[in-house]
């Protein structure tokens, strides 16, 4: 086939909602966009373990500790599904991870905010996983097969992540006034960063238009953000918490909540590496890779020993 025929065939599949699979011909830019987006997504899963992992030893009881451990373990698995998906596109896994460590690759800016109190762990489950799920449910229909399949599996597993966070906050909100204040404080700090998770406004989003055309993204940043606000406001009301936005109000005409403009200066500062925890997060990932080296070496030595025994 000629280049033009390949392109026509590819566009035809996209138009007919036929998934693109690893060995199919695809435009270079489609491949690069996917590698960038999926690896960024993988990094977010992995870096996302850090703020929560920090609280495993301090969870208030055994039930919460077991739940948090299971959630963090899921995130590691999700990172793996996604790194595997980048490999199907020809990306080198080690290189992908090194790109994170050198700061070349990004991850979700939300994880550059600290988890200061136990209530933050509840807020992260409710809001951060809630926002991630909003985004990921849409991605279950993305045009690249391995990415879509990873998303289906991730969404199935993550539904408990949001629920456990909400349940944990519910407990605090029905507790002492101090506990409820702690929950409110967590919402105050995580609300805006959670809205920033959907990325820049559509007009400012550099990759959006082409990604929508290729059906990599199925909804724009602003559409997903609006869905998240609409879904989350009633959940906050049930908790008895106040969303920190005085302009938040139901718009009968639009059938959606109106809300204030996001502080985009803060967003770009965090994306550029100047958030409260950017340096700490990267340092933790680099340390984990370096200090985990002996485990990988031991696994190799053990595999070699087993192979020798077998052949002897």
């Amino acid at each position: 086939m000629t280049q033009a025929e390949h392109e026509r065939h590819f566009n035809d599949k996209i138009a007919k909602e036929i998934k693109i699979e690893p060995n199919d011909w695809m435009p270079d830019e489609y491949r690069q966009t996917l590698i960038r987006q999926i690896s960024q997504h993988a990094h977010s899963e992995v870096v996302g373990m850090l703020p929560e992992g920090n609280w495993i030893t301090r969870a208030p009881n055994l039930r919460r500790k077991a739940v948090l451990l299971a959630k963090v373990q899921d995130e590691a698995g999700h990172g793996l599904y996604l790194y595997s998906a980048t490999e199907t596109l020809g990306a080198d896994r080690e290189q992908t991870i090194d790109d994170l460590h050198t700061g070349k690759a990004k991850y979700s800016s939300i994880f550059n905010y600290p988890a200061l109190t136990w209530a933050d762990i509840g807020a992260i489950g409710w809001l951060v996983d809630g926002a991630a799920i909003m985004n990921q449910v849409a991605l279950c229909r993305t045009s690249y097969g391995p990415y879509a399949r990873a998303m289906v599996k991730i969404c199935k597993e993550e539904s408990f992540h949001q629920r456990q966070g909400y349940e944990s906050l519910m407990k605090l909100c029905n507790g002492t006034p101090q506990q409820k204040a702690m929950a409110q404080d967590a919402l105050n700090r995580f609300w805006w960063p959670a809205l920033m998770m959907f990325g820049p406004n559509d007009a400012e989003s550099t990759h959006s238009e082409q990604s929508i055309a290729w059906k990599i993204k199925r909804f724009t940043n602003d559409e997903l953000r609006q869905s998240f606000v609409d879904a989350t406001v009633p959940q906050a009301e049930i908790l008895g918490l106040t969303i920190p936005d005085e302009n938040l109000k139901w718009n009968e005409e639009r059938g959606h909540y109106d809300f204030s403009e996001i502080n985009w200066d803060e967003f770009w500062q965090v994306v550029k590496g100047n958030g409260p925890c950017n340096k700490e997060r990267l340092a933790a990932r680099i340390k984990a890779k370096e200090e985990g080296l002996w485990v990988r070496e031991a696994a190799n030595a053990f595999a070699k020993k087993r192979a020798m025994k077998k052949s002897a």
Partner: protein
Amino acid sequence: MSNSDWPLWEVFIRSKQGLNHKHVGSLRAPDATLALENARDVYTRRSEGISIWVVESAHIHATDIDQADAFFEPSDTKIYRHPTFYEVPDGVKHM
């Protein structure tokens, strides 16, 4: 040696007795034993399986996607292999 030297393994899981093993994804591991253990940890955290196969990706041979149309053409043209090809009067039962 880093884990990029570890071979890639394809993971197949039988979800319950009576069903086929089905491809669920891939992972890297230094040998089959660790590949199976890692597959258990990442692909069956919620009782998704009762049996796992791992196969080194390098050992999988696949049809050429660019030749797919020609390769599968013989089957596409033989519509008489399907029961709907044959006409049977309305009154005929159990067929």
